[in-house]
């Protein structure tokens, strides 16, 4: 399983990365994109929306199925990756490069509560 060790993960197959400016980028894991197949549509949460940890905030649709995406942390949505609107297949090509949205976390310490790569590998193998 392709799981960069510097990222944090959720059992619902999101990854989270702390950026230099203190925001957290969120995407779906390589395992998730592989399960979904060719991705054809992404709907990230609107910029400005306050989200709770574990809340369903958007949708990713593949040729096969629609799947909810969840917020790994509480916070405010501060950016969307607009490139994915025209080229959602970038998620298939590079799941960890293709971030979907960025959060300004309510409490940056929450990041430490997410799964590390080993724990995610174990959770997603079950």
């Amino acid at each position, binding site marked *: 399983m392709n799981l960069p060790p510097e990222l944090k993960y959720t059992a619902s197959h999101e990854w989270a990365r702390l950026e230099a400016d203190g925001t957290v980028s969120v995407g779906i894991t390589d395992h998730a994109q*592989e399960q979904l*197949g*060719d991705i*054809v*549509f992404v*709907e990230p949460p609107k910029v400005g929306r306050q989200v709770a940890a574990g809340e369903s905030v958007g*949708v990713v*649709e593949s*040729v*096969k*199925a*629609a799947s909810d995406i969840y917020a790994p942390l509480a916070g405010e949505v501060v950016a969307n990756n607009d490139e994915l609107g025209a080229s959602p*297949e970038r998620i*298939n090509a590079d799941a960890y490069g293709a971030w979907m949205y960025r959060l300004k976390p309510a409490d940056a310490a929450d990041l430490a509560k997410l799964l590390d790569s080993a724990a995610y590998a174990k959770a997603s193998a079950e």
Partner: protein
Amino acid sequence: MLKTTPLNAIHRAAGARMVDFGGWDMPVNYGSQIEEHHAVRRSAGVFDVSHMRSVDLEGKGVRDFLRFALANDVAKLKLPGKALYSCLLDESAGVIDDLIAYYFRDDWFRLVVNAGTADGDIDWLHRLNALAGHGVALRSRDDLAMIAVQGPQAREAFWRAFPETRAATESLVPFQAARVGDDIVVARTGYTGEDGFEVSCPADEVATLWNGVVAAGARPCGLGARDTLRLEAGMNLYGQDMDTGASPFDAGLAWTVDLAGARGFFGRKALEARPRACDFLGLVLEDKGGVLRAHQIVLAERGEGEITSGTFSPTLGVSIALARLPVGTAPGEKVRVQVRDKELAARVVKPPFVRHGKPLI
């Protein structure tokens, strides 16, 4: 325990993602469903369809039996090898299955039926056989496997791999088959809207066929691409676009029901008495914001409808669907579709959406 086809190990070695498809362990894709789809529209792809069942019907009365059992009329099959598509109807004119019937000899026809419905079909045919009294012998050909080679270059790829079959298969027209060996049948049929062959053979010979056409340039394709291809081609999927709850008229299959003359096929009276429940048409999503999927509600001028199959069309680059719409809905009408928490605009069209590589809508 899932059933496997004789090509299972080959699929796994090729890196296929396998899924449970109606109790069968089948490849859904070998990497990218969309690339497999494009291969079939632009050049050639090959599918393992060994889960489909061939049923041989033999005996002097077989043609009369099938004229009774099927909604389409096998009297149209006059040349050995000719085939037709038909529904098998129940007593209320619901669709038990859709199938292709091949005429080989006056005492031998073959039906190729869906995997999930095969056992039920055979039980049903036994009942009709007892009822009709033609004394037909039914034989489920579990010993056969099948591949589908599809695409504008599919036949050429097949002939490159098996040049000895060319003479016998070159002159086949659509819906015509040739027997090229003891138990090998090459049919110019398919489920993609492209040219090509469906080839059935003894199970232990199918790997040779598969490897041959792959070496000749046909790309292995999974059930995922098969579904987007058939949907673009406006072809129904049993269990999704029709089932025993729908008559063929409610599933866009009126063209497969032969009402000429007084032929008393099973289900005819019920069909003629049954009011039409819906118009079966296509939809093209015009708004951004999601993908059309089965069970989404359609809000049309004359009332509500429902999508039976929907997907993203790789050829058209938009989402398309087949839907049951209120009777009287016409192509061109604008409708709204409930996609999650939104209502998105869609346009009603007459399927197919794509044929022979060309957009039709």
